[in-house]
């Protein structure tokens, strides 16, 4: 096996480990530790998906930065979400929901500058987020995700997250879950 290939495999293992660690932090409600994994200039967006004609595919997804999305925000708003949950009076998450984040189909799309000394990595995956709330209330959110991770002296950090939820009408009453 070439050194290049070996470096790619090791990098992928490291990235997958990061994504799984992040999912654990969210599902174990260690939200402050999760926030620490976010870069200050994080771009976090979940656009909406429209039904459009086959030749208008460029209009199928609303544009973050310009149009209405489910989420289009940065670290400060995500920190407000965490703070809100922690007040104990955020009724939509009090009592707390049971949530599992599943991450699969992980593929490294690009590495800058190279897998030997990676500074930034773009990684694609599928997400499946399951929420069970109070008693019989259950939601399932599935879709594609593109993350940009940045190497820092403290380890990998999230620089960008773009979530493509496979729903048109949102089939949940709210989005109090962090994705």
């Amino acid at each position: 096996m070439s050194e290049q290939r070996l470096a790619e495999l090791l990098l992928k293992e490291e990235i997958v480990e990061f994504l799984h660690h992040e999912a654990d932090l969210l599902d174990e409600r260690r939200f402050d530790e999760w926030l620490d994994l976010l870069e200050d200039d994080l771009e976090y967006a979940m656009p909406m998906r429209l039904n459009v004609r086959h030749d208008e595919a460029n209009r199928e997804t609303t544009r973050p930065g310009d149009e209405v999305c489910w989420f289009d925000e940065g670290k400060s708003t995500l920190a407000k979400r965490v703070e809100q949950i922690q007040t104990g009076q955020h009724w939509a998450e009090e009592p707390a929901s049971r949530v599992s984040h599943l991450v699969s189909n992980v593929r490294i799309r690009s590495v800058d500058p190279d897998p030997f000394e990676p500074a930034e990595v773009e990684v694609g995956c599928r997400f499946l987020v399951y929420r069970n709330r109070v008693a019989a209330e259950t939601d399932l959110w599935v879709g594609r995700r593109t993350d940009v991770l940045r190497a820092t002296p403290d380890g990998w950090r999230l620089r960008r997250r773009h979530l493509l939820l496979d729903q048109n009408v949102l089939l949940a009453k709210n989005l109090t879950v962090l994705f």
Partner: protein
Amino acid sequence: MNDRHLVDPDNGVISREIFVSDEVFDEELERIFARTWLFLGHESQIPTTGDFFNSRMGTESVLLTRDTDGEIHALLNSCRHRGMKVCRYDEGNTHDFVCPYHGWSYSTDGTLVATAGELFGVPHYRAGYGGNLDRSQWGLVPTAQLVNHHGLIFATWDPEAPPFDTYIGGFRHWLDNLAASTAGERGRVKVFRGVQKWRIRSNWKFVSENFLGDNYHGPTSHSSVDAVGIGPGGKHAATRHGDNKRPRSVASTSFPDLGHGGVTTAGYAWGYPSFAEPEIDAFFQRRWRQRLERLEAEGRPIGAFGPSTLFPSMSLHAGGFPRALIVAHPVGPTETEVWRWYLIDDDLPAEVESWLRHWYLRYSGPAGLVEQDDMENWDYATEASTGTIARRYPYNYQLGLHMATPSEDLDDAVESSYFMTEENARNYYRRWSSLMSSTSWAEIEERTGRR
């Protein structure tokens, strides 16, 4: 159905049946959603000829279209042959809707058909129908009446429904504020592309009631977001709106014969919030002054601000921030599809527009830090009202009972003497009851003496 025994606004008592019963729900579709004026969309969503937006009235899909002459139409999205939806796109541009089932096609091209939505193409028209099918009788079903109110499009299925201006009455000032720029210019708003749509397990009336004048729920429902503070971050950073403190003496307004309501009076507005960014703060303080000058010059009231509801199911933040509207589409007695539109002045500097869009999205909608908690309350209130025992006990609407006085500004409205009141809800259900127990608009008008 005589629903008078279910709704007793005079004593502030309303049965849970009207929030959970299948029978009441079916009657609402007939007597409320098939008869009243409903909001379909904003003209900026279909700016050019051929544009369409797939909207909804009650439980049904309705196409909002712009024909070759630029006229706006609302057409029931169901083929007249076998009922298939002729359009399953959310938006787009076309002059013909071709049914994917047997191929009947309908046109909005004035050079091909006499009226928009008329049946145009019928496969095997000559050989199969012998040319005897009268295409003029089998077009997409149009609404009976449609108006463009400063860019806001409303329609009704009922040809007997009162004219829109009569239907809205003094509530026009709230709609005018929704449709006016922050500088008060009428019709100078547009919607951001993308209508948020989501399903909740609530009765649809919980949504209307919430915005109609329920100042009572704020401190409890939204305590977490007030503790966190997501507002514009100026002088009043801690609150969710960033408003100047609203005086408690400011009354709510409601319309006993019409059912609409809002949280302020026509004569009072609390001004724009103060923003952390000095340039945005200065921008909106300037717009506020321009608004006051324009309204005074045009003789329009400066109030009619804040959360409010147009009977039956369109709620809005009239003027002020965030500028948005929400429609509660019924699905079933305990399920509702909520649609949210976000509006903005059509001439804002890019950085101001961007700032507002971010604020709107962190405030409202299913991911909004404020709105999330509303859905939790509406859903579980609905669920806990479905039980056999629960249904025996009515809801209490006695807050501010017998404390309303005639409006100082409007001849068809009343005002409450304290900012927390259920007077607006009582009047909403007066209107609800009147529609539900009448077989025709004539009967309703006879009862209320209004036309």
